[in-house]
């Protein structure tokens, strides 16, 4: 665990020592503010469902920019040799990178608490769906960040890593549309891979263990594969 702290500190230094983190956070909050103002004035309804969907889309679009450098940059700069020849297990290297990016994404989500405050001040929001909405976002972000790390571990080109992450996330997002074109039992398998299929119930207030399990198991699988990729050198 001590090694995780050492590596996490270094990852946070890398994240906040580069303009990428600040830029992504600024774009995220700017677009969110714009959408919130627009939907609030248009619908005059005190809920955040539109905002949660906006955050879901922004997560898929922006997280690749945060994860692309994780391993690709280390590989390109040869610093991965320093990490992998130090007496530290690959799992700690992967976890530190995951926690650094995931922490930044969660911090960006916290910026959305302002809107919760606005709704509370001027309306009577239903707190249940808001809590489950944030839970859905946290679960979704864990999966997308883990996929991003896996893709970054496969290449030393950051743009390729970002494109692979975006492509994989979009394919998972639209898996339910593809499922309708497939014969049984393949259709139900692909349907269950759908990102939006597991996100939508949670964001509207219906929390199922199966949905949380989808995100958590997907994230763990991606982190496991990233660790294996590093261990194989």
């Amino acid at each position, binding site marked *: 665990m001590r090694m995780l702290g050492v590596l996490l500190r*270094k990852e946070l230094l890398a994240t906040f020592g580069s303009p990428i983190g600040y830029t992504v956070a600024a774009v995220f909050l700017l677009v969110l503010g714009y959408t919130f103002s627009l939907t609030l004035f248009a619908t005059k309804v005190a809920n955040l469902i539109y905002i949660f969907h906006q955050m879901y889309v922004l997560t898929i679009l922006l997280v690749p920019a945060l994860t692309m450098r994780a391993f690709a940059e280390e590989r390109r*700069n*040869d*610093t991965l040799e*320093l990490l992998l*020849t*130090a*007496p*530290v297990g690959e799992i700690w290297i992967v976890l530190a990178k995951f926690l650094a990016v995931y922490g930044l994404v969660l911090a960006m989500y916290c910026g959305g608490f302002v809107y919760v405050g606005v709704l509370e001040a001027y309306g009577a929001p239903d707190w249940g769906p808001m809590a489950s909405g944030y839970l859905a976002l946290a679960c979704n972000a864990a999966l997308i960040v883990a996929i991003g790390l896996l893709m970054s571990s496969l290449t030393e080109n950051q743009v390729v890593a970002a494109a692979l992450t975006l492509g994989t996330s979009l394919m998972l997002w639209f898996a339910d549309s593809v499922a309708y074109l497939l014969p049984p039992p393949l259709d139900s398998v692909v349907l269950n891979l759908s990102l939006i299929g597991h996100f939508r119930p949670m964001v509207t207030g219906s929390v199922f263990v199966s949905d949380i399990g989808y995100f958590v198991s997907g994230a763990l699988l991606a982190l496991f594969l990233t660790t294996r990729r590093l261990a*194989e050198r």
Partner: protein
Amino acid sequence: MALAAVDLEINRGEVFGLLGPNGSGKTTFIRLLSGYLLPTSGRLEICGCDAVEQSLQARRQIGYVPEAAPVYGYMRVREFITFMARLRGMNGQAVPDAVDRVIAALALESVANKPTRTLSRGFRQRTAIAQALVHDPALLILDEPVNGLDPRQIIEIRALIRGLAGRHTVLMSSHVLGEVARTADRVGILLDGHLRGVRAMADTPDLEEWFLSLA
């Protein structure tokens, strides 16, 4: 296969030079020893630890400077060396003490608080060596340690490596015959992934002639 028939034992405290042309397998051999690559067959032992079965214990014995002398550009020199010390399991007061020791030993005082991305090639090489020495490893592995350095820096690094002999075992690779001749106690010649010969420098009056006879 990048490496075949390499049967080599390096003695404690000696400076061993691995000599060979580009593409001969020197970096592959060094990456195998450092634990960055895993062997498909054969056996590697570092200070009594199997490099594959007891990988973490073996890596604790090693200080490694890759050919590119990589550093984290967003860290300052002292910060980088401190990070590497902690990564190698050091903690408490031992860390700043060891960092001060290597900064002094490698004459890095003037750049200790500068970002590593601003360093000249010579200071960058010294910083890379400092991170490899900070935990006082039994084996120091240097891949092409004088590549890209100017003559003055080469002399300084050479003197530094010679100064480490006895206290540390040093394995250095190079494709420059003169460099190995001036620095190493023993030399091995690697050609096309095969270790063609090992000799003590004291028994090798003309390294160039010996190299050409094997090549």
